[in-house]
């Protein structure tokens, strides 16, 4: 399981995406929680990076939960256009991890990866 805390990023966003999917591949992650509490502005570019990342992670066979969307960011996003972010969302990282656990335990391959353990990945 990989948890990501990312700070204000822009060009770094692409690098973050790349690093994240690499990490998912390396440790055969079952679930990814992306916490964006620190993001005060999410424009369509950032939304797309997040969405693409979520899709890539899902394609690689892992679950994704996004957490910590700020209320004003949420307002702005829905004003810009519906469904800018398609992934499952929770309030905070803790709930995101709980949600991931829930989903992973419902999967058939959960036992196979039992030994993998947790890895934390920080960008910055």
């Amino acid at each position: 399981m990989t948890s990501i805390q990312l700070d204000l990023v822009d060009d770094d966003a692409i690098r973050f995406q790349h690093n994240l999917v690499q990490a998912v591949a390396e440790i055969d992650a079952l679930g990814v929680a992306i916490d964006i509490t620190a993001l005060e502005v999410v424009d369509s570019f950032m939304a797309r990076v997040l969405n693409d990342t979520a899709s890539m992670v899902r394609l690689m066979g892992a679950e994704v939960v996004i957490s910590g969307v700020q209320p004003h960011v949420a307002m702005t996003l829905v004003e810009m256009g519906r469904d800018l972010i398609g992934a499952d969302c929770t309030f905070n990282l803790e709930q995101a991890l709980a949600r991931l656990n829930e989903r992973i335990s419902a999967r058939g391959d959960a036992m196979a990866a039992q030994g993998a353990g947790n890895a934390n990945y920080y960008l910055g």
Partner: protein
Amino acid sequence: MSESSFEAITGLLAARQETIVREWSEEVLRAWVPRYAGLVSEPVLRLQMSEFVAEIQKILTNHEGGELPAIPAESPLGAHIQELSASRAKLGFKTADTVRYVLGLKAVLIQHLMADAGDSAITASILAVNALLDQLGMLVTEAFIDTREKLIRQQSQSIQELSTPVVRLWDQVLLLPLIGVIDTQRARQFTESLLVAITRHEARVTVIDVTGVPVFDTSVARHIMKTIDAAKLLGSRIILTGISPEGALTMTKLNISFSGILCRTSLRAGIAEALQMIGQRIVSGVGT
């Protein structure tokens, strides 16, 4: 007073109508153009002014006896003035600038009358008194209206705040009863307060009750959809209650997908559903 007492003015209006309208429009446009460029059309203004002067002439010519008649609001002149103020107000004109329209004519007419009378020493004084008091009068009106507008703004603001309370129903359950007309500004405001409350209380479920929304049209539906989407981004679910048959029809016409939106017939049912989501239940006290 005899009827002939108005001869000077009626004569003046008959003889020099065009000059008067021209001077009047110049006077008014001098004040308006810098502030409301693009909102005033000179030909239209002149046309209005010619009609205005003609009406005044009629009143001065046709009155009975020596006294001036009151100008009722329903009379052509009264209606003209009302229509004019209303349209200027909608265009965002200041009170003083709107009043200047009428006062402008007064200044022009007095100037002409004085010139005809021929005593330049008194003319200057009367003009000065006239101009000064007109200005003061405008200031009085403006201050009065400003105060009243401020009051109205305060009241509408407090109505707005009162009408969108976010109620904490239970741990992690919020209630937003929507009452009254929903416009973009209000939608933005209640969405913001709801989202902030959701984050603060980490609410997992919010019941939005629209029983008190009189008109559930496409724009209201769109606003509520945005609120629901935004709440979803935070990680909270919305239960929508109290949609009328008309409201349901609108939503269907809008082609809004209901996947992910939970609707319940009544606020009661919505609250029961919300509590069940967080593992709570209302039970009768009897027998426990």
